[in-house]
C-alpha cells in the first residue's frame, strides 16, 4: 500500500512562488489500477515523480507498505519495488534494447526468450530490436514501448506509467492495454497510469482527476468520465466572452 500524506510542492520562479501541488493526500491499495487524469499542468506528473523520488516535495510524507520513504533516493525506492515509465524516455548511445532490459531485470544472464516475452507485450519483435541501440535511430513510439518493456522486465510491485499511450500507434496501443489488463487481472502489481485515454481510464479501479495542484474528483471510470466530458465541452472562456460580445 502506498500512502501520500499532505504532499505539497512549491517552486520559486524568479522570486514568485508557484504552488504545483497543494496538500495532496491519497492512499493507493495493493493490486489496484489507479488512473491519474486531468488537464495539462495540473500536477499529475509531478505527483508521480514525487512517488518515484524524481522530485522532492516541499512538504508531506510518502509511506510504502508503512515504511517512510520520503527521504529515500530514487535508487533506494527502485530497490523497494517502485518503477517509473517516463513520458519522454531518454535515448542512450551505445546501450542496446537487450542491455536496458538486462539492467532492468537485474539478471545479467537474462535470456532472449525472456526479452522476447517483455517486448511482445508492448508489440515489438525481439529479433528486430534486441541488438539495436536505444538511440535516435528509433522512433518516439518505439522508444516509448521499449521504456514500458523495461518496467515489465523490472517486475516491480508498484509501477507508474506516465502517459504510456503518447506516440504509440493504434495497433500497439491495443496490445498495450491488454498488457495492463493482464497485470491488473493477476494483481501482480499496483499501477498508477497517467492517461487521457478513455480506453485506459475504463480499465481503472479508481480514477483520480488531478487539476490545479489538488485532487479534484475521485471515483470509478463510470462516475468520472461524464464529468471529464462535461468539463472539456466548456471551451475557452476568453473566446466565449469575445464571441458573446460580438453577438
Amino acid at each position, binding site marked *: 500500500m502506498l500512502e501520500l500524506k499532505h504532499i505539497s510542492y512549491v517552486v520559486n520562479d524568479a522570486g514568485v512562488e508557484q504552488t504545483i501541488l497543494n496538500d495532496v493526500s491519497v492512499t493507493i491499495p495493493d493490486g489496484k489500477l489507479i488512473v491519474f487524469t486531468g488537464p495539462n499542468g495540473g500536477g499529475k506528473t509531478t505527483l508521480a515523480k514525487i512517488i518515484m523520488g524524481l522530485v522532492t516535495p516541499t512538504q508531506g510524507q510518502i509511506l510504502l507498505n508503512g515504511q517512510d520513504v520520503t527521504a529515500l533516493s530514487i535508487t533506494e525506492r*527502485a530497490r523497494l519495488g517502485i518503477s517509473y515509465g517516463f513520458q519522454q524516455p531518454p535515448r542512450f548511445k551505445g546501450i542496446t534494447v537487450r542491455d536496458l532490459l538486462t539492467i532492468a531485470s537485474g539478471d545479467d544472464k537474462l535470456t532472449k526468450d525472456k526479452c522476447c516475452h517483455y517486448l511482445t507485450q508492448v508489440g515489438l519483435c525481439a529479433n528486430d530490436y534486441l541488438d539495436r541501440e536505444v538511440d535516435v535511430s528509433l522512433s518516439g513510439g518505439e522508444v516509448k514501448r521499449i521504456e514500458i518493456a523495461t518496467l515489465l522486465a523490472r517486475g516491480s510491485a508498484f509501477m507508474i506509467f506516465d502517459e504510456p499511450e503518447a506516440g504509440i500507434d493504434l495497433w500497439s496501443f491495443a496490445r498495450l492495454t491488454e498488457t495492463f489488463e493482464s497485470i491488473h487481472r493477476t494483481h501482480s502489481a499496483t499501477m498508477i497510469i497517467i492517461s487521457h485515454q478513455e480506453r485506459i481510464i475504463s480499465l481503472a479501479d479508481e480514477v483520480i482527476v488531478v487539476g490545479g495542484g489538488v485532487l479534484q474528483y475521485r471515483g470509478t471510470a463510470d462516475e468520472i468520465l461524464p464529468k471529464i466530458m462535461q468539463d472539456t465541452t466548456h471551451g475557452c472562456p476568453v473566446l466565449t466572452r469575445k464571441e458573446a460580445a460580438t453577438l
Partner: protein
Amino acid sequence: MINEVDQALLEKIADLVGKPVGALNIRKDGGCEARQSTEHIKIDARTDGKEGIDIRILDGTKGEKCFIPVVISKSDYAEMVYNDFYVGENCDVDIVAGCGIHNSGCDEARHDGVHTFHVGKNSHVRYAEKHYGEGDGTGTNVMNPQTVVYLDEGATIQMETVQIRGIDSTKRFTKIVCGKGAEALITERLLTHGTQLAESDMEIILDGEDSKGRVISRSVAQDESRQVFRPIVVGNDKCFGHVQCDSIIMGSAKIESVPAITANSTEAQLIHEAAIGKIAGDQLLKLQTLGLTEEEAEDRILKGFLA
C-alpha cells in the same frame, strides 16, 4: 622474457592468451620476444636500418590473423618504430597491434610508432589497435602512433583504435588514401582522465571514384584532461564521406573538436557531425529508476558509449 605483468598487458592490448594461432611478433623494450611467420604471412626485420618490421601478406590470404603487440616495461625509455604492411590482392585478414606500457619508475616511457599499410586490390583488412598504460610510479606514459594507409581499387580497411585510461599523453595521426571503390571505416574510442592529453588528427583522402570514408569517434574526457580532434575528409572524385565525433565531457575537462570536409568534386558528398556534452541528467535518472546508483548509472552510460 615475457613475465606475468607482460602477459597481462598482452591480454589487455591484443587479447593474447597463451600462444596465438597466426603470424606473430612481440616487441618488448626494443627487443624481439617472439616472431612467427606463417605460410602466407611473412614477418621480417627491416633492412633499411630503422627499427621495426616488414609484414608481407601474400595474394589471396584469407581468414588469417597477424599479431604485432608492443610491450614497454621500463621507465626512462623511448623508441621510434616503423612497421610496414604489404597486403597482397584479394586478401581478407585481421591485424592486431597495440601497445602496453608498465611504468613503475619516475621517468617517461614512450613509444612512437609509424604503421604504413599498402593494401592491394579487393583486399579487406580489419586492423585493431589498443593502447594501455599502467604502473605505480610517477613516470608518464606517452604514445604517439601514426597510421598511414593506401587502399588500392576495391580494398577496404576497418580500423579500430581504443585508448581507455593510462596514457598520459598521446598525439595520434591517421591518414588513409582511398583508391577507386575503396572504403575506410575508422572507429575511435578514447577515455582520458587526470591531467592526460590526447590529440587525434585524421585525414581521409577520397581519391578514387565511388570511394567511401567514415569516421566514428567517441570519447570521454574526465577530471582535468584535455582532448583535441581534427578529423578531415577530402573528396576528390565521386565519393561519400561521413565524420561523426561524439564526446562526453566531465569534471573540469576540455575538449576541442574541429572536423573539416573539403570537396574538390561536384560529385563528392561529405557530411560532418560533432557533438560535445555532459551525460544527460534524464539518462542518469532513468537508470536510477532501474535500481542503479548514480555512480553505477554513470559507469554504465560510459561503458555503453565507449563500447
